[in-house]
């Protein structure tokens, strides 16, 4: 679980509905595959994602093995004003990656 990437519009105005795009590198091991010796490779996926803006959760997702490797997630957001996003990805076992991004709000 590494290299989280977030794409926000360069500028946004209060009241705009913007698209937020996120991507993170992860194998999303399903728990269905077998290794060369025929042993099942244990499941290891990112099972949760959350997006906060100015400390408030605005969007979240529960993910299952049916989501592709290097999960891409995108959602929309109605800009209330200036603020900072905080994105969190949680892996099976509890490890987390947190990424913060300021939204450039212009008048």
């Amino acid at each position, binding site marked *: 679980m590494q290299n989280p990437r977030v794409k926000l519009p360069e500028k946004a105005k209060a009241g705009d509905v913007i698209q937020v795009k996120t991507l993170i590198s992860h194998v999303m091991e399903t728990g269905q595959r077998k290794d060369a010796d025929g042993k099942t490779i244990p499941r290891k996926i990112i099972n949760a994602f959350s997006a906060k803006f100015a400390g408030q959760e605005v969007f979240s*997702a529960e993910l299952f093995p049916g989501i592709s490797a290097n999960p*891409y997630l995108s959602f929309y957001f109605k800009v209330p004003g200036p603020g900072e996003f905080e994105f969190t990805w949680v892996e099976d076992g509890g490890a987390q990656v947190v990424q913060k991004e300021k939204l450039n709000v212009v008048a």
Partner: protein
Amino acid sequence: MTQIDSPSALNRRQFAVTGAAAAALALLPSLPALAQQQPEAKPWEELVKKILGDAKPVEGKLTIDMAEIAENGNTVPFTVGVDNPMTDKDYVKAIHLISSANPRPEVAVFRFTPATGVAKAESRMRLVSTQDVIAIAELSDGKFLMVRRPVKVTVGGCGG
């Protein structure tokens, strides 16, 4: 030259057929057990029931946007969305995505708040084979929307 079956050969065939029928008859007592297993709900149907409870979903407003033919089942892009206001009083709480033929029916659950402005999300899913993708949207007033769309998969994902 055409070969003509001798009467004895015919008899042998008849015997074989009768034998097979007898064998099938012998299997009959186990058939009711088989029949009982048939109506059992598939995992994705169980999941749909679990999400809906007693609610009856309606069609419309909820859409799944994805290719009709997915060439690579390892990564199939999709967009789900509900054409519904996103106000504090009336908003889409969640969209559940379900696969009818993957080893596990759950794909993702997206949870929205009125702050999102639009109930729409995008990601990429794995599809093991040609199947249906089902979406269920849960509205703040307790109503449910459901849509189902078939996707043909050329090369399946989740492979070993």
